[in-house]
């Protein structure tokens, strides 16, 4: 089993989840994160004092997948999340030893 993690632009979320659903993914977990990278941030000014905000809101997706599905799903995410502008994010995958569905106790691919 694999865990695919993707950090994407917030506005790409719907496109990515739609694409993943079509690719047969039944579930995933979403978090709000802040990204720090090439994209830079913005400036805020309060009563003449400037504040530099280096971080940018991003969305992190975590998808558990069968080893066999992993390469395809990474492609799907990369394709659907891409706008071509700096800050589109990263996708990575790691090995997962064991997956359990809490409701039933099922393990492995059946737990997804």
């Amino acid at each position, binding site marked *: 089993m694999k865990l695919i993690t993707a950090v994407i632009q917030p506005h790409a979320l719907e496109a990515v989840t739609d694409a993943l659903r079509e690719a047969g993914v039944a579930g995933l977990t979403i978090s709000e994160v802040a990204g720090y990278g090439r994209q*830079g941030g*913005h400036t*805020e000014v309060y009563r*003449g*004092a400037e504040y*530099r905000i280096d971080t940018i809101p991003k969305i992190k997706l975590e998808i558990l997948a069968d080893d066999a599905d992993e390469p395809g799903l990474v492609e799907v995410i990369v394709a659907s999340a891409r706008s071509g*502008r700096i800050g589109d994010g990263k996708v990575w995958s790691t090995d997962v030893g064991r997956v359990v569905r809490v409701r039933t106790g099922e393990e492995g691919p059946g737990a997804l």
Partner: protein
Amino acid sequence: MDPFTLDTGATAWLLMSASLVLLMTPALALFYGGMVRARTVLNMMLMSFTAIAVGAIVWTVCGYSIAFGSDIGGIIGDPLSHLGLHGEDAESLLAGSGVPFLVAAGFQMTFAIIGAALISGAIADRVRLRTWVLFVAAWIPLCYAPLAHMVWGGGILSGSADSLAAWMFGTTGSGADAVAAVAPIDFAGGTVVHINAGMAGLVLALVVGPRLGFGTDAMKPHNLPLVMLGAALLWFGWFGFNAGSAGTADATAGLAWVTTTVATAAAALGWALVERIRDRHVTSLGVASGIVAGLVAITPAAAAVSPLGAIALGAVAGAVCALVVPLKHRVGIDDSLDVVGVHLTGGIVGTVLVGLLSVDTGLLYGHGAAQLVVQTVVAIAAIIVSGVVTLAIALVLRATVGWRITPAEERAGIDISRHAEAGYDLVGSLASRRDRRPVRIEPAPAPAPTAADRTPAPTGGDVR
């Protein structure tokens, strides 16, 4: 000119009413501000706050004179009559009830301000603040003040002997005392403020165009308790608007107070009922919206209907506005916060229903259809005046300074991109995290290239 005798009671009520109506515009800022997304709340509120700032000054300089100065052709007042709010107490609009000149002029100022501020809801999240400021500075003297003159200043939409109403149904009395036999009724501004602002909102929504993502992206309210607070303060302020329009503290003010309350109550229930049937849920936004719809609709009618009549009027207004509001999605006009659905619609409903429900002149009370006709004609005339004048102003501004921020600024959120501010920073733990460091804490001249970066290009460059 009769000598002026001060009535401290009437003056106390009008001072208070002026204060209440002034409060309505910040209340509107909350009502509107809570309805937009979190990343545009400050710009939305700034549109109301700048309407106060600009409106107060414009009104002082010339607005009041144009509305209430010596009549020129039934269309406007002489802008020079009361330049800088110069005037004697005996010339007070409310001299007859013992209210000094500046109290009456200040009270009227607050109406012009809220009228202009209302319009901003139609063009939320996407316009340059400077264009909005210029719009308000032009709209009050060119559109609001003339319409106020026509309706309340003895012009062609009033009940004077030279008015449309007199032309239609004749006059009573003779000589200098002649007045229209069937005078239009706009007790507190259903026509002058709400139809006017609602129509102006429709025009601006069309000229400015829809928000990016309108119709596809979700744009749901970010802070409904703020919306409800705004609605509550609007209601509170509206007592000044309506009961203050009696011009003194008497039984008429009392009637206006009661009809304002019960019509609003009924409208809230009317809107809620439509929601319950149509959407299966009563929502707080619906109740808040019904409150505003009711307040709008009772405005022209507040002293003309009975308490029970006001309940009927409010219930109809609440239900009708609830039904009209979603139509914007069908026609594809991004009247973002429903200025048309609530103010134009509610204003028309109230203005027309006066013709049915006015105790002294209404159709349902057996007084024939004349009042109904007059009300309808005045409503239509106001729609035309407001539409034409607003369109002219809007097009001039589009051709010169331009309305829209750049698409990139709009996507990033107007608060950050145009005002360099964020509405909220609520996560306690990170509220002061060090990556938010003040990089410049003393004034310095703006570096030219960066300034250029942030200045919206008509070609819509991307800020990121």
